[in-house]
């Protein structure tokens, strides 16, 4: 599925300074019964966000109106656990286009890249600076520049560069996905399949 192009994103950010946020928290299994990719944002962080009677939990950050924006900033080892792409869909559907953390779980990072959410891995120190900047001013702007591969806290000017492989970067910049690429090499694949021993 093709997605929006990503270039430079300048936005306020939502802080979630918790480590090891797993995909069961991002979207609990009971919300995986859909057969279409729709409406997952409503259940993003469902059990942290709502009480069992569906009333919002006032202390959870998504229910706090002073925080908003297209960037989610999470603690170390974000997205561990289940491979459910629904977690990345929920993040996207809620309105985030970028997740920042000091460490990502593998499959979650891949899933994000495949659907147009940019995972930005920063140093633990820089992550701390971001949390502090948001705490000082919830409206502080973070600028994520994909072409330059850099992230800046605009209030302080603090900047760090981040890694992304050239192929994925091109895809994000152009809104392409891997299937487009693979469909273009069909002959190479079928001759490979023909000599595969299994």
């Amino acid at each position, binding site marked *: 599925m093709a997605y929006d192009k990503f270039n430079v994103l300048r936005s306020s950010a939502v802080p979630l300074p918790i480590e090891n946020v797993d995909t069961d928290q991002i979207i609990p299994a*009971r919300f995986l*019964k859909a057969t279409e990719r729709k409406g997952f944002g409503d259940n993003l962080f469902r059990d942290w966000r709502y009480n069992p009677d569906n009333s919002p939990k006032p202390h959870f950050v998504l229910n706090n109106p002073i925080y908003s924006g297209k960037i989610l900033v999470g603690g170390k080892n974000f997205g561990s656990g289940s491979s*459910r792409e629904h977690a990345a869909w929920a993040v996207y559907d809620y309105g985030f286009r970028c997740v920042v953390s000091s460490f990502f779980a593998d499959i979650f990072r891949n899933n994000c890249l*495949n659907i147009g959410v940019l995972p930005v891995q920063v140093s633990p120190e820089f992550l701390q600076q971001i949390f502090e900047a948001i705490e000082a001013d919830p409206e502080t702007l973070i600028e994520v520049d994909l072409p330059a591969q850099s992230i800046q806290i605009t209030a302080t000017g603090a900047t760090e560069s981040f890694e992304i492989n050239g192929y994925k970067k091109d895809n994000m910049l152009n809104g392409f996905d891997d299937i487009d690429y693979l469909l273009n090499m069909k002959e190479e*694949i079928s001759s490979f399949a023909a000599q595969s021993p299994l």
Partner: protein
Amino acid sequence: MPETLFDKVWDSHVVRHVDNGPDVLFIDRHLVHEVTSPVAFLGLKSRNIPVLYPERTFATADHNTPTRNQHLPVADPLSANQLKALEENAGKHNIPYWGLGHEKNGIVHVIGPENGITLPGATIVCGDSHTSTHGAFGAIAFGIGTSEVEMVLATQCIMQPKPKRMRITINGSLNRAVTPKDVALFIISRLSTSGATGYFVEYAGSVFEAMSMEGRMTVCNLSIEMGARGGMMAPDDKTFSYIKGREFAPTGPDWDRAMEYWKTLYTDSDALFDKELTFEGSEIEPMITYGTNPGMGMGIKESIPLSEAAGSGKATYKKSLDYMDFQEGDSMLGKKVDFVFLGSCTNGRIEDFRAFTALVKGRKKAENVTAWLVPGSHKVESSIREEGLLDILEEAGFELREPGCSACLAMNDDKIPAGKYAVSTSNRNFEGRQGPGARTLLASPLVAAAAAVTGEVTDPRELLQAEVIS
């Protein structure tokens, strides 16, 4: 140049290396289930393309299925709809589909090996992170997201950067009542849930060599819980004799050809790993988790670590203990248990039922415990009956349910109620994993059995005669 097992299998599946990008990896076997596939099939539909190699694709219903009355229509309309979607998609694309009640139905990672679909040297993917299970046969197997499911359906390939290599060696032998599950929980407790992120793990050493195929599957299954892309072990005679004669395994001259290839699947003696870890089998005790990720585990007789040890993660650590309603420094022994879950792709195989049954034999289920015993597949269920285990279990006050993922992820009705404690043989103790508010203690089938008969966390060694478990 000397190569690792992982390099041999990976490199022989690279169709193309993308400059400054990932490898295009050919996938030999693709396993599909109802939860992570519907949107992938929709993708094919909107691009108007077929499944490229349906004969390399196998579908089963497992995640979202009831474990009672499977002969009746599925009551929950959303679940029923998802099952129907898979049946239709499989039918339309000529993919073999083993739905509810089918003799080959079961949890995707249990039925792959059982039916000879899982083979050494193969690349295997599935939209489920515990696909790493199949690495027990010397395959490269890992979980993928739905976009990637669509990719594999459409092109039989996936685009992946090559992970780094890690080897975990465990020498010596295991103590009494220490099972493969304990070995895995021990490793995760040492590495943490992100300690192997970016790596593909090879398990080596005498402890793994001595393990049964079922035990090896349990270990490889849990590789993902330390963040690894997957885990694998070199195939040996045990592997080959397990596979031989299974329905989808090669036969005749194909078998001989396969064996020739399979015998080359080992790590050369001078091959280099990016990281090596070594432990002694005798260090490992029966394990249990006390927190909300699988890395928060310890020997069953130890006490819950102090939050000081968590360093910068102190707040997260405290949040986790609060959720469990445990105090730092507590002993786990004697904690009351409300539910026991035996099952899942981690511990839902026949060997797990044998271990559980050996311990409860001649005892009675504790009054305060609700026990869910869920076989990993119909074949496991049949073996439980044929080997006479069911009689022993029933005599002890247990009943058997029908196969599926069940309380491992609690998508069906098998949910642990809020605030209740469950000793579970599954793989994740995340907040709410087994139902909103549920509190999960991960452990081996033996620890689960000990809890089931005593109603509290109990060291299984106290209940076992020396001769029962060697």
